[in-house]
């Protein structure tokens, strides 16, 4: 039944030009091979090609998957944390004590963990942000093209260095190197709480100060890489507009590159902050643990959420103790969410200029 239809087609489409009819002749002789193309003509529904359908399914599936995954992680944390939170003898949010050795008498509060985590991360961010900005501007605006590429690779390579190596470096190299400087700060600026003598031995270098610097180095590549991408996309015509007005190199950067890349730079920094908050192994190795509570000094020791949880792995055989750490993990999870939300709102505020 289909064959006559297919056979007619070349004649029909050949009408606009006689030449086409001639060209179509060989197709007509192959008519038995493609009977299927006639099938869609009978279906009235809008035609969706299989490739489109498959790809849409895959893309939607991936999107749904990630949302479900995050929801599942959140749910897991909440479900595991609730029983232990119920057994907690002290206030979970405002207490500084952490004692889970006796599952029958759980006493755990996250205030110190929260403060140390935030201070380490903010210190890291404060150090990494300006340096990353400088590197990104250098790579995109100042470095000669043939130098920029290898230099960018080197910075990216920093991201490939394993955490544990940074931890060892921080503990054995950076800590001792920082000691004279730390000592000087404590002696001369000790009246500022941030630089007061801390609750661990400064000479060993296991301080928030050291950890913050190491984490700064660790988040440098991500901030640099994202900022570089954004700065590189500054429209050529805006740059030329500034140059034509008699702007110097720095003025070009100030009037075009920075305003254009500001939102990207902020979100890059927030990505870095997200990494800093969750950094585990390097911080765990560097920070000296202490039973004293956090006293707002950079030369304190202590533990971040992540390092505390990692250090406590041996305790996890009791679900009640483990639940306490999972509760801490839940707070970290929420904290990174909040940071990301703030970052997004900052970026959204700058959108109108893009």
């Amino acid at each position, binding site marked *: 039944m289909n064959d006559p239809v297919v056979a007619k087609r070349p004649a029909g489409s050949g009408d606009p030009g006689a030449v086409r009819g001639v060209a179509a002749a060989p197709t007509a002789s192959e008519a038995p091979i493609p009977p299927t193309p006639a099938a869609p003509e009978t279906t009235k529904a809008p035609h969706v090609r299989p490739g489109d359908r498959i790809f849409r399914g895959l893309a939607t599936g991936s999107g749904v998957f990630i949302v479900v995954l995050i929801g599942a992680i959140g749910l897991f944390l909440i479900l595991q944390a609730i029983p232990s939170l119920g057994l907690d003898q002290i206030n979970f949010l405002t207490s500084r004590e952490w004692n889970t050795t006796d599952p029958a008498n759980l006493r755990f509060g996250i205030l110190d963990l929260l403060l140390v985590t935030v201070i380490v991360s903010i210190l890291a961010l404060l150090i990494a942000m300006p340096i990353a900005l400088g590197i990104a501007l250098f790579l995109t605006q100042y470095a000669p093209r043939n130098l920029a590429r290898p230099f960018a690779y080197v910075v990216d390579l920093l991201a490939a260095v394993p955490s544990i190596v940074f931890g060892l470096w921080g503990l054995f190299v950076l800590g001792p190197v920082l000691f004279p400087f730390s000592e000087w700060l404590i002696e001369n600026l000790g009246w500022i709480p941030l630089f007061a003598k801390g609750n661990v031995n400064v000479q060993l270098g296991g301080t928030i100060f050291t950890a913050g610097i190491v984490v700064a180095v660790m988040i440098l590549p991500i901030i640099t890489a994202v900022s570089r991408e954004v700065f590189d996309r500054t429209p050529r*015509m805006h740059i030329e507009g500034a140059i034509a*007005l008699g702007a110097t190199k720095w003025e070009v950067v100030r009037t075009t590159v920075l305003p254009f890349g500001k939102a990207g730079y902020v979100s890059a920094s927030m990505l870095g902050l997200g990494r800093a908050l969750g950094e585990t192994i390097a911080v765990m190795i560097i920070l000296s643990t202490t039973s004293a509570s956090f006293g707002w000094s950079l030369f304190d020791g202590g533990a971040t959420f992540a390092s505390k949880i990692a250090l406590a792995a041996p305790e996890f055989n009791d679900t009640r103790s483990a639940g306490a750490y999972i509760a801490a993990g839940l707070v970290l999870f929420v904290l990174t969410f909040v940071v990301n939300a703030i970052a997004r709102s900052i970026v959204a505020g700058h959108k109108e200029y893009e």
Partner: protein
Amino acid sequence: MAKRLDIKDLNLYYGKFHAVENVSLAVPPKNVTAFIGPSGCGKSTVLRSLNRMHEVAPGARVEGKVLLDGEDIYASTVDPVEVRRTIGMVFQRPNPFPTMSIRDNVVAGLKLAGVKNKKELDEVAERSLRGANLWNEVKDRLDRPGGGLSGGQQQRLCIARAIAVQPDVLLMDEPCSALDPISTLAIEDLITELKKDYTIVIVTHNMQQAARVSDQTAFFNLLGVGQPGQLIEVDDTEKIFSNPGQKATEDYISGRFG
């Protein structure tokens, strides 16, 4: 203000590629000079060499002289940044700074030059916007971003920005090619007015436009692919369009090109 330009034996290169060969040309003050010619003939390149924008491209090189009232802007003692402050430029696509308000866009050049006095800046902004025939359209929204204007308004904003620093010469690189006919007309009228105060050089693909706005016309051509562009002839616009001295010019103008 309104100085003359003398281009002497100008050769322009992009790396090893010889883009423009042996151009010599005089641009009188308070006068509109149009550069016409087929794409790739180097007219924009020549224009960009007049405020030292050419050398911004990697590997770009300039040989020859460009004299601004007798002083070579390519002399070793001259700072290119200073040259660009005295020779303004308007680009093919309107490029106001998107993060700046309309007012800040206009006075951007002055701010770069170190003017801080708010009153003075406001006065210049108004004068320049009036000069660019844009004041009445934007006077109530000077604090809004410049990117919110229409294409034609943006281009006039860019002209206001260029004339705010009262340049000696104003260069325009196909300023109307991205605009509709009405905006084009507005810019052409503006060019005719600006001519009273400024020396203007305009690159255009639109020959009617060259005929309408310019006093003298320079025709550039390309002898072949990979060959440098050349200045074929330069003369009064009227003469170029009615009785050109060269066959190539006549062919191009009458559309018998290529």
